[in-house]
């Protein structure tokens, strides 16, 4: 074929024009290195978050109050394992293998969401993770479903569909507790006090601290800013929580008639930085649990790696 090789600038212009037209980028398309690296990093962190995210709730499976709650929690944790796999596969289409990503996680080199490094001392935390953490995740993931990279956007649609069950079960669990004994109601409120700010942090650093935001938006990696997502989340959950007499630990939280939005106190972003870097209340515990699970699962992987053909014994 007698096609003149295009220059980097020409390819970049075509790439940006495609995104500006609202078309998706697909595996095999030309893309700037920075776009590829940014997406591998984002999708990888997202996948790791799903995998580590199984731990704080998973520990409650043996202690769930009643069989139905236990089944629900097992299903939810299984969903998270599935989401992790969907995401690892989406990242693989950009050229990094699942094996490599899992290795980075186990080596402690990979980052994952801050929020899973907080403890879950009571059953109410299981509900709060569903309502708040999955609620914030869906706000973020609904945005990602519109991002410019086809495989990531497609994975998000499936994941959002499943997350809506996670939020529902969390709300149901907490509403039961709020309407239970005084002790149960207090347990729910204390759980909200613990999870409110970590969940606000989960939506990322403030826009003023995001130097590459312009490019990320132009390339359709981010469709909304972190501050926009945080506001959307507070507007959604603040009235929900108040309607069942649960109160976020923020005396300044109030509805602003003029803007039509809820005003809230920003979380401590220094804490977010520390927790992401590995210095949160449970980082060490989470990584130890993950490594232990990986070691204990080795025999399963070894068994699975033997192809069926080799296992079959010829008929006599």
């Amino acid at each position, binding site marked *: 074929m007698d096609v003149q090789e295009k220059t980097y600038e020409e390819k970049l212009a075509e790439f940006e024009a495609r995104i500006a037209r609202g078309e998706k980028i*697909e595996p095999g398309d030309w893309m700037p290195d920075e776009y590829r690296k940014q997406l591998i990093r984002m999708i990888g962190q997202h996948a790791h978050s799903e995998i580590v995210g199984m731990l704080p709730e998973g520990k409650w499976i043996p202690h769930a109050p009643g069989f139905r709650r236990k089944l629900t929690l097992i299903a939810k944790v299984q969903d998270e394992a*599935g989401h992790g796999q*969907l995401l690892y596969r989406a990242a693989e289409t950009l050229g990094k293998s699942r094996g490599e990503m*899992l*290795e980075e996680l186990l080596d402690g080199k990979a980052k994952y969401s801050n929020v899973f490094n907080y403890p879950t001392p009571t059953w109410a935390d299981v509900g709060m993770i569903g309502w708040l953490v999955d609620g914030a995740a869906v706000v973020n993931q609904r945005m990602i479903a519109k991002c410019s990279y086809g495989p990531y956007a497609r994975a998000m649609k499936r994941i959002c*569909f499943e997350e809506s069950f996670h939020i529902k079960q969390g709300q149901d669990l907490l509403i039961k507790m709020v309407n239970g004994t005084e002790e149960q109601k207090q347990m729910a409120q204390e759980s909200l006090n613990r999870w409110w700010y970590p969940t606000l942090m989960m939506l990322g650093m403030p826009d003023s601290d995001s130097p590459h935001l312009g490019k990320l938006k132009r390339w359709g990696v981010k469709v909304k800013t972190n501050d926009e997502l945080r506001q959307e989340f507070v507007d959604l959950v603040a009235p929900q929580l108040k309607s069942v007499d649960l109160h976020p630990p923020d005396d300044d939280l109030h509805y602003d008639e003029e803007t039509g939005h809820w005003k809230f106190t920003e979380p401590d972003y220094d804490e977010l930085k520390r927790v992401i870097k590995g210095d949160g209340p449970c980082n060490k515990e989470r990584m130890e649990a993950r490594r232990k699970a990986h070691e204990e699962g080795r025999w399963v*992987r070894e068994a699975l790696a*033997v192809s*069926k053909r080799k296992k079959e014994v010829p008929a006599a």
Partner: protein
Amino acid sequence: MNDTQLPIWEVFHQEKRGAPHVHVGAVHASDEEMALRMAKEQFARRLECVSLWVVREEHVVRTNYDDPFFFARNTDKRYREVHGFPAPLKGKHSE
């Protein structure tokens, strides 16, 4: 250490009889049987499903998005399209 990288299988999901098999994603598995089981766990946990196909990723032959000629439609193709024939008779022959 790296024993987590199994072969990749593309998954096609049929929601009900009569519906087409639609590509829904991929799973990692060591053989056909495991691929089908993983596909069931990953893609048929919630949605209705009556049939799954799995195909080794390297067996899928693909066109190249960058090939400017493969799907090029430079010539007038109205001779093969419905709207190329403005016959004025009423009554629908097909949807």
